[in-house]
């Protein structure tokens, strides 16, 4: 007599097996995993962030330059605009444009107290872009911004709806699928951001330009596929629009176009051989057939010359017009002539009734190039 525990265990196992058989849980969609890019914030930056929220004028050096930032390459300031910079953001958006001029190198902070700055990611040397004709400030300082990202977002209009969740503007689209009805909503403007952390005490009283006079700019990080920038205003992100337009999703027409392009490539390549390729045995058989007639004179100067000859075969395996042409040689004229004649004799003498080659692979062997290399037969 089974114990109650055994009965309960049996019922549980049977239930579990049955659940598995029925398939519950097996057809479930995999859980969506949200990923998020993170950046390492150095101790230096952390201290600066703390200092920004709890300033301590006594510790701050009012003349210290902005410490170098470990940064995803920020886009350069527009030449004619008031530049802003952003510090390494916690959730950066990669600035992928390869042609993006690199940022200015971090100014040498001789007096900075920060010593544990993370190493700057080495960047390959790049050509210094032309210096924009802008006002030059001695100490470029980013403007104030509450949010730090890798990209600069200009301040939204005063009447914009600023929200943490960025949503695209949805308008009524008659061309889209009409059955999908979406409620109209107002686009949200991204929060104003900057690319650098600025200590409030260090902020200059007068706005200055971020544009450097002349400085080698580190290159952008390796380009990654540019995701469509999900910003609210298309007018503010024209580059993203262009990228989307440049990489349209392939359509049925694209597949057809690929087919057509591939097919149309064949007439441009007349040497293309159709059908199955020659097998190793078939190639070896051909090679052996010529081997037997290649008479090498080891004492000749021609034994030190490798020649490459070409010829065409008809469908019977015979050399067309008995014409064998010299393609290349690594010897002088006299030795080359002798080596070529030996190769030519070999090819013509051994063809007698035609080389035995698979007729269904004629396209594969109608043109032949043979390299005669006597290096292994030289006198030693």
């Amino acid at each position, binding site marked *: 007599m089974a114990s109650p525990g055994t009965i309960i265990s049996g019922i549980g196992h049977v239930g579990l097996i049955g659940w598995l058989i029925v398939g519950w849980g097996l057809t479930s969609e995999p859980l969506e995993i949200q990923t998020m890019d993170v950046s390492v914030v150095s101790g230096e930056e952390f201290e600066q962030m703390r200092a920004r929220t709890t300033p301590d004028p006594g510790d701050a050096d009012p003349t210290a330059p902005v410490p170098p930032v470990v940064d995803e390459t920020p886009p350069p300031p527009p030449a004619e605009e008031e530049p802003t910079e952003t510090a390494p953001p916690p959730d950066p958006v990669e600035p992928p444009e390869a042609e993006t001029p690199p940022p200015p190198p971090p100014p040498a902070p001789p007096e900075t107290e920060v010593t544990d700055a993370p190493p700057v990611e080495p960047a390959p040397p790049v050509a210094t872009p032309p210096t924009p004709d802008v006002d030059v400030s001695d100490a470029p300082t980013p403007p104030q911004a509450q949010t730090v990202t890798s990209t600069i977002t200009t301040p939204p209009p005063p009447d914009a709806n600023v929200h943490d969740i960025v949503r695209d503007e949805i308008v009524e689209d008659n061309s889209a699928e009409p059955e999908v009805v979406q409620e109209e909503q107002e686009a949200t403007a991204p929060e104003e951001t900057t690319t650098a952390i600025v200590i409030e005490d260090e902020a200059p009283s007068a706005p200055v330009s971020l544009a450097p006079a002349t400085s080698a700019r580190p290159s952008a990080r390796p380009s990654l596929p540019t995701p469509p920038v999900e910003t609210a205003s298309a007018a503010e992100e024209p580059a993203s629009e262009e990228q989307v337009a440049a990489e349209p999703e392939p359509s049925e027409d694209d*597949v057809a176009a690929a087919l057509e392009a*591939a097919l149309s490539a064949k007439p441009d*390549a007349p040497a293309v051989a159709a059908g199955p*390729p*020659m097998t190793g045995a078939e190639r070896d058989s051909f090679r052996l057939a010529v081997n037997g007639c290649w008479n090498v004179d080891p004492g000749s100067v021609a034994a030190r010359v490798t020649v490459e000859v070409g010829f065409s075969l008809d469908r019977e395996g015979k050399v067309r017009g008995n014409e064998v042409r010299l393609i290349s040689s690594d010897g002088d004229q006299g030795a080359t002539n002798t080596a070529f004649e030996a190769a030519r*004799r070999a090819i013509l003498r051994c063809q007698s009734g035609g080389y035995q080659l698979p007729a269904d692979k004629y396209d594969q062997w109608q043109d032949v190039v043979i390299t005669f290399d006597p290096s292994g037969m030289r006198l030693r």
Partner: protein
Amino acid sequence: MMKRLLTLVITLMLAGPVFAQSGPLRLTITDGVIEPITFAVPSFEAETPAAQQAAADISRLVVQDLAGTGLFREVPATAFISQVSSFVQPVAFADWRAINAQALIVGAVNVNGNQLSVKFRLYDVFSGQELGQGLQFAGTADGWRRMGHKVADAVYSRITGEGGYFDSRVVFVSETGPKDARQKRLGIMDFDGSNVQFLTDSSSIVLAPRFSPNGDRVLYTSFESGFPRINVLNVANVGRQQLQTAPGEMAFSPRFSRDGRQVIYSLSNGGNTDIYRTDLGTGQHVRLTSAPSIETAPSLSPDGSQIVFESDRSGSQQLYIMSANGGEARRISFGEGRYGTPVWSPRGDLVAFTKQNAGRFHIGVMRLDGSEERLLTSSFLDEGPTWAPNGRVIMFSRETQGAAGTSSMYSVDISGRNLKAVPLQGGASDPSWGPLQP
């Protein structure tokens, strides 16, 4: 994404053959065969009744020359399917292909009084084409052998791409009598041992004859005065001239410079032997070595810029190379045994030598840095190599063992094949191969 993948897959499937199988079929052949090239020589056409014998003789001589190299093999006339009765008739290549004749030589001989002319054509049977253009030689009737050699030289050169050596002569030391009373005199012959003539009598010992670059003179060492002296002999009139040396000096082992105006040789004085150079026009002497050891057997490079010689300065007989003007020498032989009588190849890439090791003598060749040493022969006594004009064949002396031993001359291909004796009546040694005759 799926559409993009589909596009890629379709493109690759269709374009795949383009990348994988485009272009001609490519093969590399590294192993061939080493066998003689087959050739056929139908008896040359006799264009006049008087040319019957000469046509037959010249045909046979061409066959002998070519087959004697070891690089060619005659297809016997008994295997011929068709005959060539006329020099101008079209060639039935299929008939010659059928008997596997790779080359076909067709010729005609004309004899008019004492004048003889011979012409020939060479065909590549398997391509059905003529190799080069027809050639004709003319001379006196008694010079038919030279004309036959010239035909063979032309055929050899067109097929191998190298110069021939059939129309050349060899000067040598003819030997008669027992070893302990051997009589020696200078002789000259065709490369194949025919047409032997003597240049000196047997009244004194002669050694080491050496042809001049154009074959008009011969240097040799004579003991006519009791001491070795160097003589210059004019081949045409056998007139002699002695190289001047001081009393008590012994001069030997001479060779002409490449321009024939100077002689390099060994001079022994006071027990020391060094290499000297003497201008035949001015008689000026230049000492090229000054070592307490024995330096001898100098041989100039084809361009005349360097000299290879033998020396025992290292304690044993070895080969060295130095500038033609003397100076520091570098040793090139490092194998076991002793090396001597070096001779620079006409091609300039090899040095032939005599090697004595473990009681045997060898004729060998090595590269200029001493590498790739190959011994071509081995016997009781092989020595004194000399190169054919094309640098393909080496002739040397071989002496058999014992009191009744005789000396004879042999030739060998530089591949070590085709070793054979030069057919001569009597003994012979110390050959020196002359240039191709004009």
